[in-house]
């Protein structure tokens, strides 16, 4: 299928997750995250895509199956996580928020400063180091959140519907910038979304998931080398979106009898 020779950086094998209230979030999920790819998990609300991401992040333990990291347990430290909300600490500045991951691993503030400033510059917030989160717009807060995830130079960036609450203009801008960041930093991104358009624009590969129980319904490769404003209005983009929409519609129909 897709010419993607890269080895998986993390593999989920037959992962199942049943919550305490009996809800089956995931059942038999097989998923490889390949080194350097931009992978989107696409599915309707409640398909367990966020749960899958939390399992990869180690925030949630699978009830069945295994999560295998290529380099063993060490690789676990090498990821950043961006939540649906900016999730910033309101009591400290932008600088303080981005410093947090380094601080928790015992880094010295003065020594970490150049790295923090550089990361802030990358997300376009060089002039806002001393601002408090409440003084920023929603889009800027999300940029701080991304900077915080990037400051440890993670090999893999996990993003849980990070732009869902933003307006469309801000969202397009952040999508553009995210593609640039991914190119420049050569990292692996796992992006959870329920937006077909967003996933097609951003990803190399889209994994469409079914809901209740969550498992992989279909995989799609998006082989477009350039992701810019032109791509967003191209026939190629529209074509990918149509195929992806159909795959999503199919995934939502699939679990017959499970519909509410």
């Amino acid at each position, binding site marked *: 299928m897709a010419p993607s020779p890269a080895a998986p950086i993390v593999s989920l094998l037959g992962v199942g997750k049943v919550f305490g209230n009996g809800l089956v979030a995931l059942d038999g999920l097989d998923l490889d995250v390949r080194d350097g790819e931009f992978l989107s998990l696409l599915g309707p609300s409640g398909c367990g895509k966020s749960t899958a991401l939390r399992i990869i992040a180690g925030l949630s333990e699978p009830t069945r199956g295994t999560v295998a990291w290529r380099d063993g347990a060490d690789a676990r430290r090498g990821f950043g*996580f961006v939540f649906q909300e900016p999730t910033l600490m309101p009591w400290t500045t932008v600088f303080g928020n981005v410093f*947090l991951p380094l601080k928790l691993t015992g880094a010295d503030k003065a020594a970490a400063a150049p790295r923090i400033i550089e990361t802030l510059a990358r997300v376009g917030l060089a002039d806002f180091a001393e601002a408090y989160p409440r003084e920023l717009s929603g889009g800027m807060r999300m940029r701080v959140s991304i900077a915080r995830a990037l400051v440890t130079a993670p090999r893999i960036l996990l993003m849980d519907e990070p732009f869902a609450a933003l307006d469309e203009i801000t969202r397009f801008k952040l999508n553009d910038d995210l593609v640039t960041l991914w190119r420049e930093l050569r990292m692996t991104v796992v992006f959870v979304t329920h937006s077909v358009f967003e996933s097609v624009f951003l990803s190399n590969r889209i994994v469409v998931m079914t809901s209740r129980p969550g498992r992989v319904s279909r995989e799609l490769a998006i082989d477009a080398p350039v992701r810019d404003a032109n791509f967003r209005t191209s026939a190629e983009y529209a074509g990918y979106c149509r195929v992806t929409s159909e795959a999503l519609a199919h995934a939502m129909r699939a679990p017959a009898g499970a519909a509410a």
Partner: protein
Amino acid sequence: MNERALRILAPAAVLALGVLLWDLVVRIDGIPPYILPSPGLVLTTLVSDWPILWSSLLATLETTVEGLALAVIGGVGLAVLFNQSRLIEHSLYPYAVILQVTPVVAVAPLLLIYLPQHAAVLACAWIVAFFPVLANTTLGLNSVDHNLADLFRMYGASRWQVLTELKLPAALPQMLAGIKIAGGLSLIGAVVAEIAAGSAGSGSGLAYRIAESGYRLNIPRMFAALLLLSLAGIVIFVLLSWLTHLVLRRWHESAITRES
């Protein structure tokens, strides 16, 4: 008239009217000072009795501040302890509640039997003042953003780091609200204990002066002492409000004045 002027002038006008009415009633009805002194006489007494009232004020304020300090230490300390251990919380919380709901007026005479007078007065101030600090801080510590808590976990934060970098800063607004309530309550506790101690003790606090003046039918001095107590309460409230504003002004919604 603008908002600020209105906020100062309106209550000032009410005060002036009230004092005027009081003065008129005393004059017209010819009420003797041992029943109701005129406002002028209260002020004269305040000046003439200043040495004795001032030392009493200092004594009461000392107890109040010490009671408040102990309430903050005890309240925050217990809240942190409760937050760290469910066992300790379940074991001690009911007794904190019992201490709070038992009227301190009823407890004070007992404390005066078992403790030296200063310690007993201090204990009363502490008993009424510590609970709002405990209850509010507990609420604050338990209201930490779940995603932020996850983030700390993801970066391998120690228990101590979670407490000092996340929980305590997050609890600051509630903690300060509790301390603001505790300031007034500590004064009340000190006054109640001084009254209960009555003439039996060697105490010279303002409440003791009020009780003593009552026995001697020195009504003007009762009013003067009451006025000072009231002022002390107001000053404590203003100082604590100012402290809250100072700590929260950069980041908390409550400290921000919005332009509409």
